[in-house]
């Protein structure tokens, strides 16, 4: 598929017109499904998602997150690289955060310019010196990856604050098995269902006490990701709370319940730093809990993810992450970055401005694809506006050459199948002893032809993502002995309404049908 850059995107399904070996089985099944059949299944899928309320709120409208019917396949070998690379990155970023909110050696040594850290909008001095109880700051992360033109995985951005979308990973699997079960045949797919359990364990281990009360803090039902907040709370069996359900007293956090106040030990918060504590951060926040930061500082509650993580996923810090990996771990990055230009640097800025048509220009502190300029498809007016914005505040912007993401076959209008660009967000949970990477993650797909913007807030869709267990690389627990034969019930044939009852009815029926002679 030709694209704006002139370089063909990596096609995950075909190599030289033939399906790649790992895709062959899927290809065979898909080839048997007609466009009408796919279209039918798409209707079933929408009905299923709507009925189950699996939705994403965009603007004022609540809609099902568009889920494509064709799964995306990642081989066991590819997954090993991704998993190792994500773990390595989280390890380095954890050390970076603990450094900048502590001794600051990394800044003193000049690995990262001090000014970049101190000017980051997500660097919160209020979090300085706070020690998380098990040392973890990045409990949950989503590292966005893409496959470049050669098929290699690269990191596009880090999400260390409130990455969302994991509920869709779990629901996509269930939905696909529900509406298109035949595609699973012939594949051993690594399951994703244990995520809530892993998350719960990580939150428990992050707690200051041994048998903690855990809550999920949501901004409320009007938040676009509210479905996910409720999903996670329900599946972990913990309370979903809003800011007004919590209050602080004596540097402790309490939850208002019908049985009186109950102390909270871990807050998995899904609200942004700025809104978390009006006493310390944004004073006009009505979503947060006044005093919660002091309670955390006193060690009486754990906030996950930690306050101030945004400094590490700032897009202006991103170019330095490979250097951080070398600095802290003494190893080469397993997953490379995408080339990135720092627009605060005058030479780089001039270079970018000269070829802005082939660049993506992004605000360094935003997420969700907001404010992004896609050079090749931008109008002159948009380019001028962005140029002016960059000049007014160069620290706030970065630029990257347009990378053509890989493509996957995707069902488009009327059941037709066509290649669309995809990225991948693997989710990682750090419990302090182990970083667990959910096998697969969220594949986001840019639905308009040729588009490279996959954010769900910009009309992107998603795909069920399969990590194959072909190599038998993963030890699954062996089936257990069935339990105690002595008490295993010997189930008899079923109780039924007595046959005589039926026979009598039938005989009656026959006689009634004859009726009286007329």
């Amino acid at each position, binding site marked *: 598929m030709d694209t704006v850059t002139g370089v063909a995107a990596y096609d995950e399904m075909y190599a030289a017109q033939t399906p790649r070996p790992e895709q062959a089985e899927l290809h065979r099944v898909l080839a048997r499904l007609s466009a009408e059949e796919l279209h039918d299944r798409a209707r079933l899928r929408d009905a299923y998602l709507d009925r189950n309320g699996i939705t994403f709120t965009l603007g004022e409208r609540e809609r099902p997150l568009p889920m494509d019917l064709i799964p995306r396949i990642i081989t066991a070998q590819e997954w090993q690289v991704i998993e190792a690379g994500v773990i390595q990155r989280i390890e380095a970023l954890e050390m970076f955060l603990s450094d900048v909110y502590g001794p600051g050696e990394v800044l003193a040594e000049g690995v990262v310019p001090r000014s970049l850290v101190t000017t980051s909008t997500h660097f919160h001095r209020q979090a300085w010196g706070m020690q998380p109880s098990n040392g973890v700051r990045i409990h949950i992360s989503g590292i966005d990856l893409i496959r470049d033109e050669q098929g290699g995985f690269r990191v596009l951005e880090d999400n260390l604050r409130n990455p969302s979308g994991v509920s869709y990973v779990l629901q996509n699997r269930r939905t696909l098995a529900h509406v298109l079960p035949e595609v699973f045949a012939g594949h051993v797919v690594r399951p994703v269902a244990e995520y809530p359990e892993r998350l719960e364990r990580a939150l428990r281990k992050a707690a200051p006490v041994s048998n903690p009360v855990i809550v999920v803090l949501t901004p409320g039902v009007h938040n676009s990701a509210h479905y996910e907040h409720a999903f996670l709370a329900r599946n972990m069996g913990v309370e979903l709370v809003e800011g007004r359900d919590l209050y602080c007293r004596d540097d402790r956090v309490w939850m208002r319940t019908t049985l009186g106040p109950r102390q909270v030990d871990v807050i998995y918060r899904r609200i942004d730093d700025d809104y978390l504590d009006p006493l310390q951060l944004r004073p006009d926040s009505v979503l947060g809990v006044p005093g919660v930061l002091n309670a955390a500082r006193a060690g009486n509650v754990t906030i996950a993810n930690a306050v101030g993580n945004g400094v590490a996923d700032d897009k202006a810090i991103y170019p330095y992450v490979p250097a951080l990996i070398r600095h802290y771990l003494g190893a080469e990055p397993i997953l490379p970055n995408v080339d990135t230009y720092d627009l605060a640097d005058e030479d780089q800025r001039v270079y970018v401005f000269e070829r802005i048509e082939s660049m993506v220009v992004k605000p360094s502190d935003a997420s969700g694809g907001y404010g992004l300029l896609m050079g090749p498809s931008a109008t002159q007016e948009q380019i001028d506006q962005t140029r002016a914005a960059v000049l007014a505040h160069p620290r706030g912007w970065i630029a990257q050459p347009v990378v053509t993401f890989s493509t996957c076959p995707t069902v488009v209008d009327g059941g037709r199948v066509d290649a669309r660009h995809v990225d991948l967000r693997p989710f990682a949970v750090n419990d302090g002893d182990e970083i667990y990477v959910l096998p697969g993650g969220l594949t986001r797909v840019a639905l308009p032809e040729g588009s490279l913007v996959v954010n769900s807030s910009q009309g992107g869709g998603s795909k069920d993502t399969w990590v194959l267990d072909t190599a038998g690389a993963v030890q699954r627990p062996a089936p257990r002995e069935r339990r105690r034969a002595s008490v295993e019930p010997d189930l008899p044939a079923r109780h039924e309404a007595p046959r005589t009852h*039926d026979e009598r009815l039938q005989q009656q029926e026959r006689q009634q049908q004859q009726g009286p002679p007329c």
Partner: protein
Amino acid sequence: MLSRIAESFFWIGRYLERAHATARMVAEHHQLIVEEAPADEAAACALLLDALSLPDDEAGASADLVSIVLGSADRSSTVAGVIAAARANALAVRDVLAVEVFEALNAAHLSVVRGRGLARVDSPGVALHRVVERLLVVHGVIAWAMPRDEAYHFLVLGRSLERIDMTARLLAVQHDAVWPESGSVATLRSAAAHSAYLRRAAPDGDGVREFLVLDPDFPRSMRRSAVEAEEAVRSIMALGAGGGTELLREVGMLRSALEFAVNPTPDDVDRLAEQARIAAMTASDIADAAFFRQSGTIVWSH
């Protein structure tokens, strides 16, 4: 009330519960087989068929499994067969049955037995969901429109005894033996108990079994079903029906065995579950003798 009518209501209660629980079980089982293909698919199918006392020699794959369990009107213990039987009983008591209840049951029967829903076994999840949904409407209309008279109490008695039986069959599947990681969740989902359970503990086999046998609040736990059965028998007796004493003793003893189990070990839970299953069967026979056929069948001979 006529014994014949009481018997029909009792069986409407049983069959509706059996259809509903069976449809849920197969939907979950099918989904699990698709998502986490077991090494031996036919064996995984046979587990469910055995638990449902259905012949297990025809199911080679998950799609066969669904069509066998959905079944047809003339095959007993299949979803379609059971719904047809419920409807046959409803027809026989149509004069005393609230119009709304008959309509809802009839609609379920039409959609399941005659409807195209069943033909769509290539999307079995969708077909099964439709069945479950129609049956929920029937339950809803019963709760909403039926007077709490004798007929209602017989229906509840049948339903709660069947619940105990179906929960025993669900536990007999032992999902966690085949799927150590996700089996317990599947057991819970089959009983619509997942959300209710998660607030207590992380799902593990023993905890889930104890929940489904001994939980005081969950509507499909054996203990809760025994409480309902006992209440139904007491209500029937309060309305003047004679001959319920033996039945009351049977369900009352079951209820107290489940209610007062002290620190049960996993083995105790298994024993109590089996005891409950047998007691439910016995209670059904006692009800039959006490209320539906108390004079014995007269056989005419030439």
